[in-house]
């Protein structure tokens, strides 16, 4: 079946060029000696050195990494439960509503999510005195909420594409629901949870809008620092930072794909 016409290849090729040209340009300019981003001054690593000397960026990166780690972990736990409930627990009252609540954060414009969470936190603080002020806790709660949705979708699609015979066999052999989950289901969906965790981690590291709403003074995340720097004027060390982040993410994505493929081979030998 060869129907890859030249027109199709050309238009898809244009699409891929469009996807990658900016990223490639960014990587090349990160090695530029010149301070002017568009003028080529020869190869150099000096913006990488500048980057690691920049305390504001390094602090923000540390804050972001901590937040991303905690939110991704919480979101993986809650999201796995949600995905499991939606695909393995049969019918129960409120299931349709739960399915709606789980997928809605995926499409909700970020400004609305951010604004509503901040107003909730302010109202909660005046009513119960918690959370006192805003900072890491509130950002973690916000990120967990929208990452949970992604984990739930990934886990749910994995569970629904997987047949239930192993679980039924274990049940026939007398496994209790709790041990059934931890001994059979969890190991089977572990790669999906891991890729959900990685996705949540990068989504949390990446989020600017929601974090801007729910963060307090002194808790700027990396995207917030990048945004203010980029708005004020182009700083070449951002190119170096971007290149490093692309490198790390590429490795993570390749690892995730590798894991999923191994899992698939195990499932359908």
């Amino acid at each position, binding site marked *: *079946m060869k*129907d890859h*016409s030249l027109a*199709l*290849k050309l238009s*898809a090729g244009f*699409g891929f060029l*469009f*996807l*990658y040209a*900016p*990223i490639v*340009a*960014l990587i090349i300019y990160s090695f530029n000696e010149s301070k002017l*981003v*568009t003028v080529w001054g020869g190869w150099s690593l000096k913006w990488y050195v500048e980057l690691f000397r920049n305390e504001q960026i390094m602090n923000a990166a540390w804050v972001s990494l901590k937040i991303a780690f905690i939110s991704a972990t919480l979101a993986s736990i*809650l999201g796995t*439960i949600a995905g*499991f409930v939606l695909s393995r*627990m049969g019918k*129960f009252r*409120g299931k349709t509503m*739960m399915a709606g*609540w*789980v*997928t*809605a954060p995926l*499409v909700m*414009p*970020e*400004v*609305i999510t951010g*604004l*509503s969470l901040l*107003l*909730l936190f*302010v*109202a909660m603080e*005046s009513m119960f005195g918690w959370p006192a002020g805003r900072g890491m806790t509130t950002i973690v*709660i*916000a990120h*967990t*909420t929208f990452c*949970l949705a992604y984990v739930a*979708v990934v886990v749910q699609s994995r569970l629904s594409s997987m047949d239930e015979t192993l679980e039924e066999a274990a049940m026939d052999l007398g496994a209790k*629901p*709790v041990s059934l989950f931890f001994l059979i289901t969890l190991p089977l969906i572990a790669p999906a949870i891991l890729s959900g965790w990685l996705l949540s981690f*990068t989504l949390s*590291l*990446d989020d*600017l809008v929601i974090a801007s709403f729910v963060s307090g003074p002194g808790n700027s995340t990396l*995207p917030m620092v*990048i*945004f203010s720097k980029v708005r004020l004027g*182009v700083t070449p060390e*951002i190119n170096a*930072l*971007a290149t490093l982040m692309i490198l790390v*993410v590429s490795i*993570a994505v390749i690892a995730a794909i590798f894991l999923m493929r191994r899992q698939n081979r195990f499932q359908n030998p």
Partner: protein
Amino acid sequence: MRLGRWFVILMPMLWLAAFFFIPFLVVFKISLSEAMIAVPPYSPLLEWDPSNAYATLKVTFGNYLFLFESRFYLDAYLSSLRIAAVSTFFTLIIGFPIAYLIARSGPMARTILLSLVILPFWTSFLLRVYAWMSLLKKNGLVNDTLMSLGLIDQPLQILQTDVAVYIGIVYTYLPFMILPLYTTLEKMDMSLIEAAKDLGAKPWRAFCSVTLPLAKPGIIAGCLLVFIPAVGEFVIPSLLGGSDTLMIGRVLWDEFFLNRDWPLASAVAIIMLIVLVGPIMFMRNGNKEAM
């Protein structure tokens, strides 16, 4: 075990209720109050009068009236919808051939091409928008290339125009279009196209009367996944757009952070939500078919 079952079901439900659903009620409540110089900067909904132990409900629709009376907000909503619609259209035009090519490739090429689509989606959204800033500048790569090809002799002003916003939205949301399209195209039975060709249909005719209708669920899902978040976009118009690029997400941001009018910002959000409820419900129902 009934108790354990309900405990498991309730855990994510309670979290989502507390941090996703109830916040909208809070936004709605605050949109009905008045802005005040206080902490928090809005009037309370219930006013307690200690002398006669009555609580009076204080509700104002002033914020909503203001939104409808002022030309500025109406224009912002309309221009957001326009920008999102045009961008969604171009995302579809660029995304379709890619999704089609992937769906028709062999297993190995499919994995590689699919990863190439997903990779940019995993890299920082903000940094990808920033990458376009340096490409689209007066002395950026795009202008340099066009000039050296002799297509233009003056650098074009692309950055800080609506065109740059279109490019930014199409670029960052492209994977959201390609993935659902790919999912439906992959499931498509190719013998139908062959049958159409055997019956004498030209490729274009076969595409329009066979491929396109079969891809419809994917097209709808992809368009909604791009359109809904694009309407509220804040980062792209503020980095790539000009001062005259009017988008409601940016208006809400300014109302909240610069003017510090929380009740008005809440009303802006509620109206935006109402405008998007239709597409979001549609998305939820269409989801089951396409994903």
